[in-house]
């Protein structure tokens, strides 16, 4: 029987990959955003001790307005250039997809009444949110992934409808994994508060210019982090629509709602590995170790 062995909030600012200077990325940096990069380092260390087969990631930057889509091509190799920050992220990626698990998740979600689609076009370019979160979690890319799109029902209907669909998708994800033989790490690829600055400093990694956009956003970020640290995931789920609206948060993607539901709302405290801002947005790297099933 398969199992979700770990879940993580794994934000995807391309700045973090830029500052890491991996060989896959063309631009190079002097430094930058260390608290978040060290946070990812702690997450990787936590995962080092866990046996898992596949990473499943839900990314806000694969935006689908008709249903939820799943990567369905076994292997991708291409160049990902960030449309907003092309000066920072031009990443040559090569990755494997766990297509059988993706198909199982797609089928289960469809049975649950969600609109779904497998993405079979080999020319498709994998979104940078998926790539950034997966690179920072597993830079060796030695595990296959399943990438899930963000169904944009927050814009089309309401945050509550989005959340209902994301929760249904999360449950379907869990059921599909448990029906498989996979041990899976889940990544919710998103920031918390998400109001950007609209200008960059001349030296992009000049950390004297980096801070949260405004105090309001910071208060919301801390509120959410504290709830996750206390294991208050049920309350958090209830609060997410309000947080999303108030903090212009990237949780409008459904990634965090999906993650919490897939993990069956664990009451164990989440580990905070790092918090920091990136061009004004609030980002936390956090994880739930579910190897013992997670306390519920």
């Amino acid at each position, binding site marked *: 029987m398969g199992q979700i062995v770990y879940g993580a909030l794994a934000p995807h600012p391309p700045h973090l990959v830029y500052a890491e200077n991996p060989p896959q990325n063309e631009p190079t940096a002097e430094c930058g955003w260390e608290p978040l990069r060290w946070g990812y380092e702690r997450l990787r260390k936590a995962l080092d001790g866990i046996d898992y087969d596949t990473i499943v990631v839900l990314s806000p930057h*694969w*935006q*689908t*307005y*008709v*249903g939820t*889509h799943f990567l369905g091509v076994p292997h991708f190799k*291409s*160049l*990902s*250039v960030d*449309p*907003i*920050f*092309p000066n920072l992220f*031009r990443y040559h990626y090569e990755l494997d997809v766990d297509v059988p698990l993706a198909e199982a998740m797609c089928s289960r979600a469809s049975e649950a009444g969600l*609109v779904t*689609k497998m*993405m*079979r*076009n080999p*020319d*498709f*370019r994998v*979104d940078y949110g998926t790539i950034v979160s997966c690179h920072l979690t597993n830079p060796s890319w030695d595990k296959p992934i399943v990438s899930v*799109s963000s169904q*944009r*029902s927050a*814009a*089309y209907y309401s945050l509550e409808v989005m959340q209902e669909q994301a929760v249904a998708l999360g449950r379907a994800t869990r059921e599909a994994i448990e029906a498989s033989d996979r041990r899976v790490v889940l990544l919710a690829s998103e920031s918390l508060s998400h*109001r*950007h600055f*609209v*200008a*960059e400093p001349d030296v992009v990694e000049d950390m004297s210019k980096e801070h949260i*956009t*405004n105090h*309001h*956003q910071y208060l919301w970020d801390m509120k959410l982090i504290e709830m996750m640290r206390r294991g208050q995931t049920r309350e958090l789920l209830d609060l997410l629509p309000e947080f999303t609206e108030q*903090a*212009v948060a990237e949780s409008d993607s459904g990634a965090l709602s999906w993650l919490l539901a897939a993990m069956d709302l664990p009451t164990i405290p989440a580990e905070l590995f790092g918090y920091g801002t990136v061009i004004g947005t609030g980002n936390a790297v956090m994880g739930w170790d579910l190897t013992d099933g997670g306390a519920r």
Partner: protein
Amino acid sequence: MTEATTDHEPGIVAGLIVPGIPHPLLCPDASEGYRALADAFAEARQVIHDAGADLLIIYSTMWPSIIGHQVQARPEPEWVHVDELFHDLGSIPYKFQVDVPFAHDLVGHMEARGLKARAVNYHGFPIDTGSVVANTLLNGDNALPVTMLSSNMYSDRAETVVHGKAVRDAVVAAGRRAAVVVVGTLSNRLFTDWIDPADDHVHSLKDDEWNRKVLELLGQGRLEDTAQLSREIHRQIRVPKVVNFKPMWWLSSVMGAHNDYRGTVHAYGALHGTGSAVVSLVPTEGGIGLKEFDEDDVDVFQGDREVLA
């Protein structure tokens, strides 16, 4: 008021409004409506030709930017594009001819008006589906050099109008005759399930009625009147993905904030539920003079007014 350009004067010689959803390019014969829209692109191409344009400027609502405004400056961007939603319709190989000197001129004119702007020149930069579809159907043989512009997701009217003025400045300063293309739908609500293309229709009667009202105005050449309705259009028929419905503000600013145009609705139909139309506007004289200015005509952008969120 901007005068109509003669055969030789620099300026904006035509404006186009086209959808960026890929069906007219990738499956034009899947429905009569898709075919009509695809044929309308061909008519619009003829309008560009007849106007004597020497440059195509594409402003796509499907290319969002955050750090100010981006201008494509790769000389020959080449890729095989796949839409993130309609990937099953197929791939779109392209190789475009970008007017690089004009792109850099544009950045300078934007900065001169207080805007943040930058040229992007990177292999593999993800040109959006809308720009790819528009340039392929209007200019697939690269008969005209093209400049592609992003749409800043936070900007509202003041910034958008200044952006449009900067584009016009650049065209006139360069002595060019430009056709400007807005890529976007009217009502933008897609069906949230898969449909048979033969059954495609505008998502709701309300969307359809508003689309037809907008097209009635544009067909009469009343561009500025339509621009003045942007906030109401946004409230009535736009799924709020961005702060506001901006393309008519931009187009009116670039072409001239008046109603003296010869407007033609080449086709109107549904693309997976959205209201999609191909419209051309050619500067003329003696058009309908019903414009109403009820907002500031901003010439220099002076910041975001300290708006927090």
